[in-house]
């Protein structure tokens, strides 16, 4: 029977998974497949497993629980193997590599930060600081119907907004970087100007969180900071 694979840990990991279930409907029981110094957390998966969002949550919950007791290599969501033997072979084949990754990530957690800024605040800033933008805006508001004006204003404002977003994103990453081991930036989506993951050592965690808190306080309520963590190191495995 096919098995869904959640994570890899050291075989010595206590794997307290009581009360948790895996993916599928009805949710499958979790179990482990051992291969030398490594263990994989798996559950049986029916051939026609069609994951829903609750399965994403199950996947994530398993990682979080395992994190409590040791280092974990979280697998990408949705990976299945033919059977327990296939899992065992995969672990054996890359045993050294996975063991090294586990050692490298020991005591580390991922923190994920997204940030947005109130758009009106940014636009006000642009209009205040750019005399050209202000002139165009005033002309339009005064009733000038030249269709080129809104385009010129919009183009200018978009550039200014992007520049400011980039400066903000760079500034925030810069402020947090000293407390992190690695970082990984992604394209922000929606209203966000920042989408970044940090790998943080346990010993730096407190300082990292304090720095982030300081930033949010300094930047004020015009900003929307969403910080998530400690998370399994999805971005750094």
């Amino acid at each position, binding site marked *: 029977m096919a098995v869904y694979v959640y994570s890899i840990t050291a075989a010595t990991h206590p794997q307290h998974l009581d009360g948790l279930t895996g993916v599928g409907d009805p949710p499958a029981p979790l179990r482990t497949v051992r291969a030398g110094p490594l263990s994989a957390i798996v559950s049986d998966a029916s051939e026609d497993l069609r994951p829903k969002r609750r399965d994403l949550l199950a996947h994530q919950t398993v990682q979080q629980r395992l994190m409590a007791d040791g280092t974990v290599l979280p697998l990408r969501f949705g990976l299945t193997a033919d059977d327990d033997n296939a899992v065992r072979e995969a672990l054996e084949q890359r045993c050294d590599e996975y063991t090294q990754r586990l050692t490298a990530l020991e005591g580390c957690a991922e923190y994920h930060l997204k940030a947005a800024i109130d758009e009106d605040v940014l636009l006000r800033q642009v209009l205040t600081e750019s005399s050209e933008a202000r002139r165009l805006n005033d002309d339009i508001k005064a009733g000038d119907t030249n269709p080129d004006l809104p385009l010129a204003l919009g183009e200018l404002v978009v550039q200014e907004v992007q520049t400011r977003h980039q400066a903000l994103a760079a500034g925030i990453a810069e402020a947090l970087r000293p407390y992190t081991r690695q970082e990984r930036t992604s394209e922000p989506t*929606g209203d966000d100007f920042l989408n970044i993951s940090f790998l943080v050592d346990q010993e730096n965690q407190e300082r990292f969180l304090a720095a982030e808190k300081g930033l949010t306080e300094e930047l004020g309520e015009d900003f929307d900071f969403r910080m998530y963590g400690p998370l399994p190191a999805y971005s750094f495995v």
Partner: protein
Amino acid sequence: MTVVPQSASSVSRGGGGGGTASLYDILELILDRGLVIDVFIRVSLVGIEILKIDVRIVVASVDTYLRFAEACNRLDLEAGRKAPTQLTDVVGKITEGGARGKTKGALTGAVEAITDSLRQESDRDDEEPELRRARPVRRPARRREE
């Protein structure tokens, strides 16, 4: 502080409604990152993949320009007179290290429209609507609320 295992949703501080918003915000980590073992097979993600809001195709377009122009026209500059000063100070402060990143943030009306429709789409067939992004929204009136 130690590494405290938190609930599955593990939010330390989010703008949105706690755990429900958090899974949305870390979906890309669960779906796109994590270890890949190449001999394993990935199950079909139809119905889940649509949640990934990574469409950011139109960075500069006429629609975008017009939307921003309108947003500017609508602004009451007097009302927000204090805000820009504060922001400028802070930006100067936190960027004084000279960092100039490559983050390519951009607001685009077109992208918003696409993601809104994606969201609506996924809301319709979704049995767990609480996973939609839910966070305080401050945006110009023209943009649709989620």
